[in-house]
C-alpha cells in the first residue's frame, strides 16, 4: 500500500535521525518539550469539545485507527491496513467497513487495546444525551459490531462510498471502555477525572492538567515503540495571543513549538530573523471566501428578507456583476497584507486535495480592473456622477459583513477600496464572531440569516473527502424561517443540475470519478458567482531550530507525529 509505504518512509527517516545521534534513540532522553498554544486546552476529551486546541492537545494521548499524513494521505495507525473495496475491508454495497486492529497495542494503564474499546467509543459518541461534539463523524452509522477482540465492523444505514468517518483523524480517536464505561450519556460531562486525564494509546500520558492553562505530559510507559517518545516531559501551555506565542518560540526561545500563528506577516518575518526558530506552514481545505446573497436582503421585505420567497437579489444574481467584483480584487495584496506565507491566492472554493483542485477559474488570479469595468458597462451598469454605477435606478451599493477580526477588517477595507475603482459602493459591517457564527435564530446578525449583500468568512471540511462539503450548496440546504434558519447554503444558490451532481457523487466510489464531479460542482459555483473565493488559507506554526521531526499537517492534528519529534544537539 502506498500509505504503508509512506509510514515506513517516515519510520526510516526517524531511524536515520536516530542513527545520527544514537544516544537519543531512547525513551525520554531529550528532556523537556515546550509547546505553546495561544488558546489553552480546556478539556482532554475531544468528544466533549470541538476546539482545535482540545483536539490537538488530546492527540498526544488518544489515537484514531487511521489518520492523515502531511500530504492528506490516509495512513493506518492502530491498524495494519486501511480497509478498502480492494482488500475487502469495505463491503461491496458500501454499507459496512471492517477494521482489523494491530495486535499487541496496550493502553497506558497496561491493559490491552481491543475492539470492545472501538465499539464503546462509537456508542459513547452516538449517545444522544451525551452532547458528543464529534457526532458528525458518525453520521449514518447504524451499528458497530465487535467481531473478535481485534476486529470491529461498522455498519452504515446507507451506502457510504467514503466510509472513513468514524475512527479516522484526530477528531475521532478511540477512548478506553474501562475508563469511560460509567460516563455514558448525560453523565459524560461530570466524569472530570476521565475527561481531564484519559488513558490512551499514544506516546504520552497526562501527568498534570490545569484547565485553560497548562497540560504536562509524561511518556506513556506502554507505548508500542520502546524507543519513543524522545522527551521526558511535554509542557503544553496555553494563553495569550498569537504574537506572544510566536515571540516565545522565535525570539526568546522559551518554547519549542507554537501553533496557529495568525500574526501579520511582517511581524513573523521580523521575529524569525532572530534565528531561534523556523516558521512552517501547511495548507488544508480552508478558503477565505465571499458569499454572494442571491436573495433579496432588503429590510422592507420583513420576514421574507433574505429568503427565496423574498425574490431575487436586484443585481447580484447577474454573473457579470459578481465576475466584475472578483476581477477587481487583487488577491496578492490581500495575501500580502493579512496572510503572508499562510495564504495563497485561490479561485476555487475547493482548492485541495490536489485532485479536486480546478484550474478552470484561474482568470481570477490576475486582477483586471479594465475588464471588470468593461463587463459592467456591457451589462448596462452606467457610472453615475457619484462614482457609483447604476442600472434602472438600482445602484451598485453593497453591504458587506464579516466577523470581527483584525485581518478580516483589513481585508474588508482593502476590498472596499478595490471595488470603488469599478464603481461599486461598499458599506462595511463587522459582527462579533460569537454572534455571527452563533446561530441564534433570534439574532439578525448571524451568517445564516445573511441580512447583507455579501459576507466573508472561512470554511473547510475535515479529512480529505469533499462529498458532504459540496452537498452544502444544495437547494434543500438554504436557510429559511421554516428550517429555523438552519442550513449551510448561505448564497441561496439553487440549481437542479447541482443537486443531481451531489446525488451522483454519493453513489460513486471511484476516486477519479468523484474528483471529476467535485470539480464540476466547484466550477458551477464559481460561474454563477455564488461564491467569490479569495485566499486558500494554511496553518502557520513555528518550531525551535533544535526541534526535529516536525511535519506540519493540516489534515489531522499538527502534533500527529509527536512520537517522532526529537531534540537536535
Amino acid at each position, binding site marked *: 500500500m502506498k500509505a504503508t509505504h509512506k509510514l515506513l518512509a517516515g519510520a526510516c527517516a526517524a531511524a536515520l535521525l536516530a542513527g545520527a545521534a544514537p544516544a537519543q534513540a531512547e525513551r525520554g532522553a531529550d528532556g523537556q518539550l515546550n509547546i505553546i498554544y495561544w488558546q489553552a486546552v480546556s478539556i482532554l476529551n475531544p468528544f466533549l469539545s470541538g476546539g482545535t486546541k482540545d483536539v490537538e492537545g488530546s492527540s498526544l494521548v488518544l489515537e484514531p485507527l487511521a489518520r492523515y499524513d502531511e500530504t492528506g494521505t490516509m495512513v493506518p495507525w492502530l491498524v495494519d491496513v486501511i480497509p478498502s473495496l480492494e482488500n475487502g475491508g469495505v463491503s461491496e454495497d458500501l454499507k459496512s467497513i471492517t477494521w482489523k486492529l494491530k495486535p499487541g497495542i496496550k493502553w497506558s494503564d497496561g491493559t490491552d487495546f481491543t475492539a470492545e474499546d472501538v465499539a464503546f467509543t462509537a456508542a459513547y459518541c452516538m449517545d444522544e444525551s451525551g452532547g458528543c461534539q464529534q457526532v458528525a463523524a458518525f453520521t449514518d452509522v447504524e451499528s458497530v459490531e465487535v467481531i473478535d477482540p481485534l476486529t470491529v465492523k461498522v455498519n452504515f444505514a446507507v451506502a457510504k462510498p467514503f466510509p472513513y468517518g468514524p475512527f479516522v483523524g484526530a477528531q475521532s480517536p478511540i477512548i478506553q471502555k474501562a475508563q469511560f464505561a460509567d460516563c455514558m450519556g448525560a453523565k459524560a460531562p461530570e466524569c472530570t477525572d476521565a475527561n481531564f486525564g484519559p488513558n490512551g494509546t499514544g506516546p504520552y500520558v497526562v501527568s498534570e492538567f490545569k*484547565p485553560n492553562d497548562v497540560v504536562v505530559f509524561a511518556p506513556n510507559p506502554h507505548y508500542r515503540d520502546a524507543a519513543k517518545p524522545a522527551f521526558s516531559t511535554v509542557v503544553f501551555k496555553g494563553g495569550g495571543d498569537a504574537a506572544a506565542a510566536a515571540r516565545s518560540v522565535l525570539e526568546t526561545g522559551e518554547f519549542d513549538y507554537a501553533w496557529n500563528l495568525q500574526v501579520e506577516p511582517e511581524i513573523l518575518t521580523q521575529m524569525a530573523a532572530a534565528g531561534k526558530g523556523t516558521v512552517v506552514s501547511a495548507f488544508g481545505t480552508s478558503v477565505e471566501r465571499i458569499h454572494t446573497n442571491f436573495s433579496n436582503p432588503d429590510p422592507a421585505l420583513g420576514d421574507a428578507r433574505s429568503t427565496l420567497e423574498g425574490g431575487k437579489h436586484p443585481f447580484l444574481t447577474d454573473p457579470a456583476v459578481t465576475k466584475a467584483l472578483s476581477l477587481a480584487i487583487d488577491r496578492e495584496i490581500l495575501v500580502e497584507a493579512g496572510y503572508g506565507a499562510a495564504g495563497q491566492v485561490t479561485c476555487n472554493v475547493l482548492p485541495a486535495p490536489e485532485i479536486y483542485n480546478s484550474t478552470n477559474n484561474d482568470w481570477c488570479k490576475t486582477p483586471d480592473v479594465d475588464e471588470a469595468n468593461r463587463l459592467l458597462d456591457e451589462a448596462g451598469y452606467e457610472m453615475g456622477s457619484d462614482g457609483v454605477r447604476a442600472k434602472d435606478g438600482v445602484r451598485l451599493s453593497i453591504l458587506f459583513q464579516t466577523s470581527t477580526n483584525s485581518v478580516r477588517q483589513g481585508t474588508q477595507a482593502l476590498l472596499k477600496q478595490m471595488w470603488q475603482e469599478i464603481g461599486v459602493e461598499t458599506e462595511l459591517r463587522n459582527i462579533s464572531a460569537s*454572534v455571527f457564527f452563533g*446561530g441564534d435564530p433570534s439574532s439578525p446578525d448571524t451568517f445564516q440569516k445573511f441580512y447583507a449583500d455579501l459576507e466573508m468568512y472561512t470554511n473547510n471540511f475535515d479529512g480529505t473527502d469533499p462529498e458532504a462539503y459540496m452537498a452544502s450548496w444544495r437547494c434543500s440546504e438554504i436557510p429559511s424561517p421554516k428550517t429555523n434558519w438552519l442550513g449551510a447554503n448561505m448564497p441561496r444558490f439553487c440549481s437542479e443540475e447541482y443537486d443531481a451532481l451531489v446525488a451522483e457523487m454519493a453513489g460513486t466510489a471511484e476516486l477519479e470519478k468523484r474528483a471529476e464531479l467535485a470539480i464540476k460542482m466547484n466550477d458551477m459555483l464559481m460561474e454563477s458567482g455564488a461564491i467569490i473565493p479569495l485566499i486558500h488559507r494554511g496553518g502557520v506554526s513555528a518550531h525551535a531550530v533544535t526541534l526535529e521531526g516536525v511535519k506540519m499537517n493540516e489534515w489531522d492534528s499538527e502534533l500527529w507525529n509527536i512520537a517522532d519529534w526529537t531534540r537536535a544537539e
Partner: protein
Amino acid sequence: MLTYTLRRLAFAVPALLAISFIIFAILDLAPSDPTAQLPLTIPPEVREKIRLSLGLGEPFAVRYWKWLIQFFVNEPLNLIEQWTGWSFGDGDRLRVLSWQTRSPVVDLIAQRMPQTLWVVGMSYVLGALIAIPIGVISAYRQYSWFDQFGTLFSMVGFSIPTFFTGLLFIVIFSVNLEWFPSIYDTTHEVTDWESFVFQIKQMIMPTMVLGLYNASQISRFMRASMLDNLGQDYVRTARAKGMTEKVVVLVHVMRNSLIPVVTVLALNLPQVFGGAIITEQIFKVNGLGQLLIGAIEGGDIPTVQTLTFIFAVLIVLFNLIADLLYGILDPRIRYD
C-alpha cells in the same frame, strides 16, 4: 464594636443575595451560547441537545435556585469534606460545572488561586512597600524636587495602560536582554534555591508592572493623608515636647496617616483575588483574571457567574474588614 460588626454582617446577607440575583440575571440575559464555539459542521439538532445537556432548558427561577443551592450549600460542603475528611450524606452533590471544561468551577478556582495570589498579591505588597515611603517623603518635603518627581512618577505609572508597559518589559527584558522569561510557568514548584531563583525571575516582570501601577495609586493616597495630618495641632505638641523629627513624622504623623491608607488597602484587596486581567493575559500567568476573561470569551456562564459572585462576596467581606480595621486602628471609633 461587636454589635456594629454583627449589624454589618446582617446587612451583608441580603446585600449578597441581591448581588447574586443581579449577577445571575444579567449573565443569564447574555446572549452567550455554549455551542457558539463549536465547528460549523455540527448540525443544529446536536447543538440543541448540547444545550439541553447543560441544563439550559429549565426556567430561570429553577436555575437560579439550583445555582444558589450549589453555591451556598454544595460547594462549601465539598470544601469542608476536602479539608476535614468528614463526609456529609452521599457526597454526590450537584456542583457548579463549567461549560468549557465540564469540571467543577470551584476546583478550577482553587487551581488558579496560587499564581494569582503570588503574582497579584506580591505586586500589591510591593506596591505598598514602594508607595508608603514615597508618600511619606513627598508629603514631608512638599513641593520639593522629590515630591515633584514622585508626583510625576505616580501619574505616569497611573496613565500608561498595563498592556503597554507589560509588552515593553517583555521586549526589553525578555527579547533583548534575555533576563526574565516572558511566559509564566504555572507548573513550576519551588523545591530548592535554584527553583526559587527561577520563581523570582518569572515573577519579576508581572509583579513590577502591576506593582508600579499599584504604587502610583497608593503613594498619592499616602501623601494626601500625610499632608492632612502634618497640619494637625498634635504635631506641634510633639515638636513642643522636644521629639525628634523622626519620631514626630514616623511615630505621630505616620500612625494617624496610615489609618485611612490601611483601610483603603483592605478595601482594594479583593482586586488581588480578582486578578489583574490584562497583566495575567500578557504574561500568561493564567490566574483568576485569565480564567474569568476566558470564561467570558468562551461564553462559559456558570464560571463567570461563580467567579463574579465570589468577587462580590470578597468585596463585601473586605468592606467589612476595612470597617473593622478602621475601628481597631482608630481608638476614637473603637469604643463607640
